[in-house]
């Protein structure tokens, strides 16, 4: 068998293969960002309420997620289940780890957003008869969101790119797909450029939408 029959050039059907992989990157990222953001907001709120007690418990736990390299978390978590007698798919394991990783990053952002709302503004809201939850919903949420939206966008873009690490578990997302193609075609430049374009296409909406919201939310 000669080399030519093993290595075949980049074909149009490979684009379809990459598009499918991009869909998987999108799926795992959307799940991680949406669920992680919701969890992170709750965690951030808990940190802002509990302060010292929160820092010592939840804060410490979230710091672990933020500090240990994602690739280590993924491998540890994925291999932990068989030890206790379960089998999980790379997708499930990867999603769970990414969700908690995202939630840890978002928690810090959310806490910053809550802290960005002056105590006096909240007192004014309460003095008007608003309940604690009304104050959170109508005052803290919109003001805090406007304050930290750029930071959140940074987290979301980071998670989208970090989702590439789930490839180490064998989940065929964009990066893994590109490696498969590179091995077959021996055309790393072309393929990495195409894959880079896919990542850009996935990221672009996040940065555009948040930039537009930021402009709309300038208070005048």
């Amino acid at each position, binding site marked *: 068998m000669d080399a030519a029959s093993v290595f075949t050039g980049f074909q149009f059907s490979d684009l379809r293969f990459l598009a499918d992989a991009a869909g998987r990157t999108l799926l795992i990222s959307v799940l991680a960002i949406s669920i992680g953001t919701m969890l992170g907001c709750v965690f951030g709120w808990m940190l802002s309420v509990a302060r010292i007690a929160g820092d010592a418990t939840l804060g410490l736990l979230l710091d672990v997620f933020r500090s240990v390299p994602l690739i280590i978390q993924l491998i540890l978590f994925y291999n932990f289940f068989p030890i206790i007698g379960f089998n999980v798919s790379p997708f499930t394991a990867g999603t769970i780890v990414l969700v908690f990783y995202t939630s840890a990053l978002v928690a810090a952002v959310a806490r910053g957003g809550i802290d960005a709302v002056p105590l006096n503004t909240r007192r004014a809201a309460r003095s008007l008869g608003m*309940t604690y939850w009304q104050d959170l919903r*109508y005052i803290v949420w919109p003001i805090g969101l406007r304050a930290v939206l750029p930071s959140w966008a940074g987290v979301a873009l980071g998670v989208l790119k970090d989702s590439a690490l789930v490839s180490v578990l064998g989940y065929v997302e964009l990066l893994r797909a590109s490696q498969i193609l590179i091995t077959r075609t021996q055309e790393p430049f072309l393929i990495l450029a195409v894959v880079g374009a896919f990542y850009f296409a996935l990221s672009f909406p996040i940065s555009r939408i948040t930039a537009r919201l930021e402009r709309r*939310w300038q208070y*005048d």
Partner: protein
Amino acid sequence: MIEIKAVKKSFGDLKVLNGIDLTVDKGEVISVIGASGSGKSTMLYCINALEPIDSGQIVVDGVDVHNKSTDVNKLRRNIGMVFQQWNSFPHLTTLENVALSPRIVLGKSRAEAREIARSQLEHVGLGDKLDVYPSRMSGGQQQRLAIARALAMEPNYMLFDEVTSALDPELVGEVLDTLRLLSDEGMTMLVVTHEIGFARDVSDRVAFFHEGIIEELGPPAQVIEHPQSVHTQKFLANVR
């Protein structure tokens, strides 16, 4: 009627209120004067339960404010408060600032709430600023916005916490004029202020605070023109 009975409160070791007794009758305007840190503002915060008290009792229209079973959210609808920092909601227009709590707290419809907001803003002279964001307004305008926002809840009482202290001097007049307007309309008001002229002209009674107690209480002609206590005399001499 607001009845404050033997109220004490400390922040840690610092005794801020050291046995306050004061009754505010319907329609009365009471100015509260005294040095910074004498407990004036803290007393206001205690009246609508933004701060807890250590002992004593505060009763507003027969409701014991600091009783655990009291619904403070309901109580606060009846007590408007305006702060030193005007605390506008920066993400809402002037109209939305005022319309928010009638809608979400009182359950008015969107249209009703906007109508209430519009009339309250016209009342304080901001009828031409309805769709402007607070950041585009002067401190005096934002303070009048805060007054309109509190009035939109149709409270029986208004508490003012040094509402002109953070304003540039040329903006003080417009806010004091608004307070005079409310007083003329018969609003019951408790006004913590450093504006002695305002206290003399507008109040029915003046309370002088000194180290957590009301050291002197009476009509302005008495407390401001003929203070009895050495502390009052000294304070008035300093601020004039």
